[in-house]
């Protein structure tokens, strides 16, 4: 019993070390090339500024603000996140990655990288939008929770989709087709939650939990199936 627990702890520590190593590798590459983050931040900045300049005199309803926030976050993130696995394939580094890592470690590291990048983009986009549009959420904690839960769900979806798409030859069209049924419910609920928080509505715990549960299901299935996706030739 003790030996089994000890083995479990040791395996956990090794897994953690490998994940940290993979994560460090992705951050080094990203911040040296700055390819994904620059494109995303440029997209976020330009769209936020354009929206604020063109609608400065209009008194937009909170629901429209919510839609705009999510459209900006979604497209800023999609510019970079979908490429995280495709880059490994296109640059021919997937063999180097596969020969030195377990498939599960790769999935967890990519998921964490996507999640952190998504949160960075969200943290930049949201205050920028609120500042330029001169609005402030009535219920800030609810607002922050809805943005956080929505971002978590979207980052888990994009990680899985990125892995599937990287292994197919019809990349862009496949990504569009399979991302549709997964992203629509998440975006729909996130937009509703954010609109409600901007209007000062009460915390909708059920839908916040739905977003987290949705991420949990996606992550669990992906974790179990990732080996077959990644090694499929």
């Amino acid at each position, binding site marked *: 019993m003790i030996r089994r627990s000890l083995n479990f702890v040791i395996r956990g520590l090794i897994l953690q070390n490998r994940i940290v*190593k993979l994560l460090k*590798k992705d951050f*080094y*590459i990203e911040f*040296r*090339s700055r390819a994904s983050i620059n494109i995303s931040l440029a997209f976020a900045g330009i769209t936020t500024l354009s929206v604020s300049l063109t609608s400065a005199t209009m008194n937009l309803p909170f629901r429209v603000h919510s839609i705009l926030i999510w459209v900006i976050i979604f497209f800023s993130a999609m510019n970079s996140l979908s490429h995280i696995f495709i880059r490994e394939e296109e*640059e*021919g*580094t997937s*063999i*180097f990655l*596969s*020969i*030195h*890592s*377990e498939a599960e470690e790769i999935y967890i590291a990519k998921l964490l990288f996507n999640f952190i990048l998504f949160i960075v983009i969200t943290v930049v986009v949201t205050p920028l939008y609120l500042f330029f549009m001169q609005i402030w959420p009535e219920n800030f904690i609810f607002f922050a929770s809805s943005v956080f839960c929505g971002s978590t769900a979207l980052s888990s979806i994009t990680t899985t989709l990125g892995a599937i798409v990287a292994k197919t030859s019809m990349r862009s069209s496949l990504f569009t087709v399979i991302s549709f049924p997964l992203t629509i419910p998440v975006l729909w609920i996130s937009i509703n939650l954010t609109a409600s928080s901007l209007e000062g509505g009460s915390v909708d715990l059920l839908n916040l939990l739905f977003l987290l549960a949705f991420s949990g299901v996606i992550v669990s299935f992906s974790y179990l199936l990732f080996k077959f996706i990644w*090694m499929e*030739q």
Partner: protein
Amino acid sequence: MHERYLIEASNLSRRFGKSRIFRGISFSVESGECFFITGPNGSGKSTLVQIIAGLQKPSEGKLAIKLNGKEILESLWRHIGFASPAMNLYERLTVYENASFAFRGKDKSLINHYISLFGLGKHKDKEARILSSGLRQRLRLITAMINSPGIVLLDEPGSNLDVEGKDVLFREIEKIKKESLVIIASNDPEELKLCHKGIDLAKQNS
């Protein structure tokens, strides 16, 4: 107990769509042996090495990799060192970072040891993207050998290497083949001379 590896391939074949790359490949290699795979371009040398490394699946046939008589069913990569021209390194990582990414041990001084051994000491902090193709090949070989794996798979190991690079490579192969299982896929007679048995895919496919 000393680790003994055994690779048994029986009747392996590989197809991509309708085109058959090779068929009916059978062989057996064990620790302490060096096995060559040769054949003309397009005969499937690299594909066969990638199948052994677990990076591809054979279309037919069975490949069993055993450690001390027991088949390895999980985490094969922990037992394998692999270098191939098809394996690109991380361009934005330095020589040291690429080697360190591949390194699984605790004694980090080994990373510097291998970097110096393959003559990359003065390029240690350079990003891989600015290395010449010969220096990149040296770095690939470092990543294959740095963990002293039980199975070493080398696809065209001498490609782009200068005389000095080949000397180091041959010396290292001579050293590791005493205990490890080494498989070399190549057309270079000099490299094939390092092994005492092997297969010619041209003959197998004819």
